């Protein structure tokens, strides 16, 4: 019912009702992008306020929920753009980031050598629990790393497009991707493949 509301219904509705109808759905979407719950709730809140301000722009061609998710998606991208700029100006990323537990010894050898994974890609793809673990691993790594990995691997974005989206250099993108892949690999090995 909520998903098929017309433009007129939406525009005459008490916007507080939107929160009950769409709040949880938006929060889940935000949490699929980030682990920080407060931040996710902040972005949901901003989404509703923007939606209210721009309610006349909702043309009713798509579902209202789809329109809300589009606003939220932009909010998420804005957040990571700001975050990414802050990170790249405050850290020399070619040096990598200080880490609680380095993956390599000072001689550049694996501290814990990768184990052999027995996996059938076709089965993994269909296993919902596996994706919950992947989402958890992405949530556990620094958010600006997870975001670059999402853009590159999920959406097959070109490196140069990521550079211009996040306003960072291509070597910066490579470093972030490499760090993200290392962290994801280790996390999956610990939480799934062991």
């Amino acid at each position: 019912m909520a998903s098929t509301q017309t433009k007129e219904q939406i525009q005459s509705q008490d916007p507080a009702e939107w929160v009950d109808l769409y709040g949880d759905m938006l929060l889940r979407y935000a949490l699929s992008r980030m682990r920080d719950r407060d931040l996710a709730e902040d972005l949901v809140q901003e989404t509703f306020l923007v939606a209210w301000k721009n309610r006349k722009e909702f043309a009713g061609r798509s579902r209202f929920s789809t329109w809300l998710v589009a606003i939220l998606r932009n909010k998420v991208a804005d957040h990571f753009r700001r975050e990414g700029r802050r990170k790249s100006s405050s850290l020399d990323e070619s040096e990598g980031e200080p880490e609680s537990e380095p993956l390599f010894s000072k001689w550049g050898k694996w501290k814990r050598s990768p184990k052999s994974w027995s996996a059938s890609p076709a089965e993994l793809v269909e296993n919902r629990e596996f994706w919950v673990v992947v989402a958890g691993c992405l949530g556990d790594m620094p958010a600006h790393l997870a975001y670059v990995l999402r853009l590159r691997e999920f959406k097959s974005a070109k490196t140069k497009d990521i550079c211009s989206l996040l306003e960072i250099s291509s070597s910066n993108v490579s470093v972030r991707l490499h760090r993200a892949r290392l962290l994801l690999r280790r996390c999956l090995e610990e939480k799934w493949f062991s």
Partner: protein
Amino acid sequence: MKCSHATKLLSEAEERQLTGRERLRLRFHVFVCTACRRFKKQLGLLRLLLTEASPKILAAVYASDATLSASRRQEIKALLRRAAEES
């Protein structure tokens, strides 16, 4: 070549064409290093899997039971009501 460098090149190979010298040194390192050989294989698997990730993760997360906290729910409603009164 160190493992830390080899893994960096393996990852970078997905972003750019490695130089001939890099490829040669990397191939040799991977040939002699079991750990990096596994890493290379796992990188390939991750790449393959992650192209499917977006809808899968979304489906898994939408099926979760996360809900807005009651205090936040009230706060957003109050903000929206105030905005509605002002307009």
